[in-house]
């Protein structure tokens, strides 16, 4: 399934793309968190990770339903999530990175995302798009908790044992190259910013950077140098991992295309 671009105005198309970016981030990260179920380091953390996964899934559902309406091609939330192939997915590369059964990876990925997501949802409270502002009003409360949860773990792991410090620093060094994509501006983002629908991506950087510095300092971790940043996810150019996520996630909808669940 591809977006039917003929029927949408350029504004609608940009909004649709923008909503897919927001929704796909939530769908994919929620999926990665769900993979932890029953395998977390402590039972309390099984509950916490599922909780974050559930929040993101709820956000995704609201956003995807709206995206389907904007698109106007009769696609509901499930049609958009379960029937698009990878090159139509618009999530940032950061969220599709695998867990590798390593809690440090899950926490660093979550923290880099949450620190950004919190600023984004806060900015979306002021969106000129009433629907998006309403979704943000609910999301921002959830994301506040997510950021607190991942920040606290960054500090515990960074300022815990020598082993945990090493593991979380390694994960941070490895995932840092995916942080740049969060702040990239392109035609879609520029158009959203101009219409007052979404914040300009670069406007979120200072606050994000400050949060990162504050938490890393408390965690006694070093902020990696900004080297070459990986990007492309928001335009459908993903790594090899997304295909496997979708193969698993979309299996039933693809194998039984005429079924309702």
């Amino acid at each position, binding site marked *: 399934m591809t977006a039917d671009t003929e029927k949408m105005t350029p504004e609608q198309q940009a909004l649709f793309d923008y909503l897919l970016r927001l929704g796909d981030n939530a769908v994919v990260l929620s999926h990665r968190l*769900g993979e932890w*179920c029953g395998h977390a*380091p*402590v*039972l309390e953390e099984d509950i916490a990770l599922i909780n974050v996964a559930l929040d993101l899934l*709820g956000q995704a559902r609201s956003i995807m339903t709206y995206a389907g309406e904007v698109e106007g091609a009769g696609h509901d939330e*499930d049609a958009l999530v379960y029937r698009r192939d990878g090159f139509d997915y618009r999530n940032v590369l950061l969220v599709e990175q695998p867990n590798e059964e390593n809690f440090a990876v899950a926490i660093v990925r979550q923290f880099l995302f949450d620190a950004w997501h919190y600023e984004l949802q806060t900015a979306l409270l002021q969106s000129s798009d009433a629907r998006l502002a309403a979704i943000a009003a609910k999301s921002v409360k959830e994301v506040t908790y997510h950021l607190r949860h991942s920040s606290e773990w960054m500090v515990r792991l960074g300022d815990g044992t020598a082993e945990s410090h090493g593991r979380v620093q390694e994960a941070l060094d490895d995932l840092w190259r995916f942080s740049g994509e969060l702040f990239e501006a392109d035609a879609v983002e520029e158009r959203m910013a101009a219409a007052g629908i979404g914040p300009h991506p670069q406007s979120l950087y200072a606050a994000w950077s400050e949060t990162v510095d504050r938490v890393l300092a408390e965690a006694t971790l070093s902020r990696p140098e900004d080297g070459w940043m990986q990007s492309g996810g928001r335009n459908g150019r993903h790594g090899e991992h997304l295909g496997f996520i979708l193969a698993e996630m979309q299996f*039933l909808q693809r194998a039984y295309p005429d079924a309702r669940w």
Partner: protein
Amino acid sequence: MYTQGLDVQKGDVSIPLEQGDSELERRFQAKIDADEKIEPKDWMPEGYRKTLVRQISQHAHSEVVGMLPEGNWITRAPSLRRKAALLAKIQDEAGHGLYLYSACETLNVSRQELVDQLLEGKAKYSSIFNYPSTTWADIGAIGWLVDGAAIMNQVPLQRCSYGPYSRAMIRICKEESFHQRQGYEIMLTLARGTAAQKRMAQDALNRWWWPSLMMFGPNDKDSPHSAQSMRWKIKRVSNDELRQKFVDVTVPQADFLGLTMPDPALRWNAGSGHYDFGEIDWEEFKQVLQGNGPCNRERMRDRNRAHERGRWVREAALAHAEKRRARAAAQTTAVAAE
């Protein structure tokens, strides 16, 4: 989800059957006979305490291990709505696990000891979770049948004589009823769906029906500790009575789904007012309990692996908490010195 009538196995002598008749014991039994609750600080016979620790911890372990067969379908749930419901259900189960471990801790045993017993293979958990969840319909069947059987077992436990367990059950039963309805609704959607979906639903019923009946534990005649547990009001209805009740309730539900029970001997008995059903394969039950079920090894390996992989995280959390304490103490000392 629930543990089952595997609380005390036949031939197990670690829990004494005899009850003495000291003044303390007479007063204890009188309290129970008067339907009063026993609370953590009250005196209790060692056998009572041990029976409860075993039963509640088995129940807690069952909640935790039960996350695995259901978690197996989170990443493949067929719609966002189903995925959210499944995540929420498993989150409830993890919560039940925590809640029950806490109830157990009121009996002077630490959660760590109990978890170690599970990981070392010394503690039992419900045998049902040693069966694989191979299709999406299994998520429906587990909710409908396994949670359904669990509720049968747990509803009488809301009146259990031990206060903390009884109160835990009241809360847990509410959530389990919700899970059971959700499971049945999945089955209904499949049964009314395409031919392939209906086949999936029937296949799940075929595989989960007998193991669900086994959840009620051995026949009463083979359950030597039941009488004592009944007198102590830890157990309130016998295995066979609960099993019969479950069959009576579930058969019409299967009829409504248009599915066939995998038991040729199953028929309504107008004389008794109950359904007669075939003989359970007790050898299979025994083998699963002894560790030879289809997934026993996988379940224990998964739990142990998660525990091992998480060790450095738990150590870090403890080390960090210790650092904070030390810093706070140093600060207090410094302030006092000024």
